[in-house]
């Protein structure tokens, strides 16, 4: 017996801006815009081109996609520490994985943090969910304050990996 084996891991991050959802994907500068999301149908727009996907959930947070005659299963990025993943080398942009309220901000811009250190705590569905630093890093930007409501994909905190000491991974 085998369980479905994801073929790839997403490195994209999503943000909400100007009443739309925007997705930044590695390797392209201009973000993708969500034109319509009526599950399982998704319309994405990028550089004037619109493409249709069929999207369905899989086990362990993976996503099944169908587009242009092809089916792929893409695994959820490793969120133990990293909600989103590096937008570029050495840079982490952590986004909210689900809607909630910011309960605590435990660091300040300019702080040096260790891999695994709690940075921000978000409360959602009566559960506290910490965002942790994926690497030994310096906090470059904090986008939220205590009490802020956040939507999935909202950028929370940005980090630049610190040099020297080997990081946890």
């Amino acid at each position: 017996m085998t369980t479905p084996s994801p073929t790839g891991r997403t490195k994209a991050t999503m943000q909400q801006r100007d009443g739309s959802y925007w997705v930044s994907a590695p390797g392209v500068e201009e973000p993708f815009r969500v034109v319509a999301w009526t599950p399982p149908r998704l319309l994405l727009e990028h550089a004037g081109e619109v493409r249709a996907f069929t999207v369905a959930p899989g086990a362990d947070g993976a996503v099944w996609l169908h587009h242009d005659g092809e089916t792929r299963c893409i695994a959820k990025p490793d969120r133990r520490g990293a909600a989103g993943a590096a937008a570029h080398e050495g840079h982490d942009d952590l986004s909210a994985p689900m809607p909630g309220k910011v309960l605590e901000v435990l660091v300040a811009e300019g702080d040096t943090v260790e891999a695994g250190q709690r940075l921000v705590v978000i409360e959602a569905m009566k559960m506290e969910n910490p965002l942790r630093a994926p690497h030994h890093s310096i906090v470059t930007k904090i986008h939220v304050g205590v009490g802020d409501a956040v939507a999935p994909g909202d950028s929370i905190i940005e980090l630049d990996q610190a040099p020297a000491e080997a990081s946890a991974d």
Partner: protein
Amino acid sequence: MTNLKRVLVANRGEIALRLLRGLQALGKETVAVYSEADAAAPHLRAAHQAICVGPPPPGESYLKIDALIAAAQASGADAIHPGYGFLSENADFAAAVEAAGLTFIGPTATSIREMGDKTTAGEIARAAGIPTVPAHQPDGEVDAAKLQAAAKEIGVPVLVKAAAGGGGKGMRIAHSIAEIPDLVEAASREAQNAFGDGRVFLERYLENARHVEVQVVGDGAGHALVLGARDCSTQRRHQKLIEECPPPQLPTATHDAMLAAARSLVERSNYRGAGTVEFILANDGAFYFLEVNTRLQVEHPVTECVYGVDLLELQVSVAEGRGWPKELEQRQPQGHAVEVRVYAENPAAGFLPSTGTLTEVVWPQGPGVRVDAGVERGNEVSIYYDPLLAKIITYGEDRDRALDRMEQALAETFLAGVETSVQFCRELIAHEDFRATRVHTTYVAEKLENAAPAPPRDDDPWWQAAACVGWNLGQPDASGSGPSTRQPGAWDTLRDWRATP
């Protein structure tokens, strides 16, 4: 002559649906049976009545003869259709159905017994003048030393096969005499587990051979209706993956000789009902009798497309003692049909079964497309049953048209939640080897063995972006437009979002 009123279908999945629909189109009332694992299966809704026959394991439900007969009697059915697999080729079941005063839509128990034993079937074929593959033929054997001696006479490569087998179970290929004892032991053990009969026999292994089979219907009184041939050479693990009708690039003389051989077998054995006579076509053009399948085949739809018949209707007609319309005997094939089996299997992992919940199911549509599906969104693909989820059949005026339509149909197909054979078959059908009819029964296995590892495909930004949306948004906005609140749903329960320690 009888007139069947109410028919119980003793099966599940796509064949149960196909039979229940077909029976109702013939004006019959229908009864479905199901196991506790199949309470959400679509075949239940296709019937007038559904009866639970037991727990998930087949031995406690779909294979339970007394439970099935009791269900037929309780529901007032006057006949049972066994489908394929399960009890379809079980002579004891056919006998028990008849003994209960019900009509078995299939061959007599005697026919099933004779044809079901490959050794006996081979003797019947040779008596009808049909060649069989050079083999060590006694009633089957479990003594490895005797089989090893016999292998020296037949020559290698040689197949070790279960005497009571089918579907590739209890089958091994020996490339040297030395490995015979180990392979015999393994094949015998597998046969014992699968069929309760550990006897095996040896047969010359024909390399680069094709599998061609003939569709027959007998009236039980020595008359045969022969409805052409099918090519089923695309196989994995000795099980069929893609079938075609008519067989491509088959010389007319060979085609006609196969049909004549199958006719002779049916006529001589007074065979009743639908059946399939299987042949192996060697690369030198010679063909040999393989076995008779005493049931409706999985791949029967390609014959239905090309011969313009409903094989279920013919089965029912024969069961009611009405035979078939005479004009069918002159029926000529029209066009070309191909079938792809949609298995819940992972081709990249040697076609191992893949289990999970089907979170999305999208089937193809359009001219010349037929889908015989047994699952729908939300169904669980479990470990209990055959991984065949559906069959996609395309039809066209010639082979290229049928194959082009199949490529398109497979491109439209989307199953989320389990790995399937769809993409593999789409690539295969587009391949020049397939288009040029260079596929033989071990082609898929050899191709997979020599395949380079698939390149990583996770860096396309479009796919990354789409995955990111699915993973972040999951459910639609309650308002249906723009970011706002969202409702929890299946997506959320599948996500790794836990309370902090």
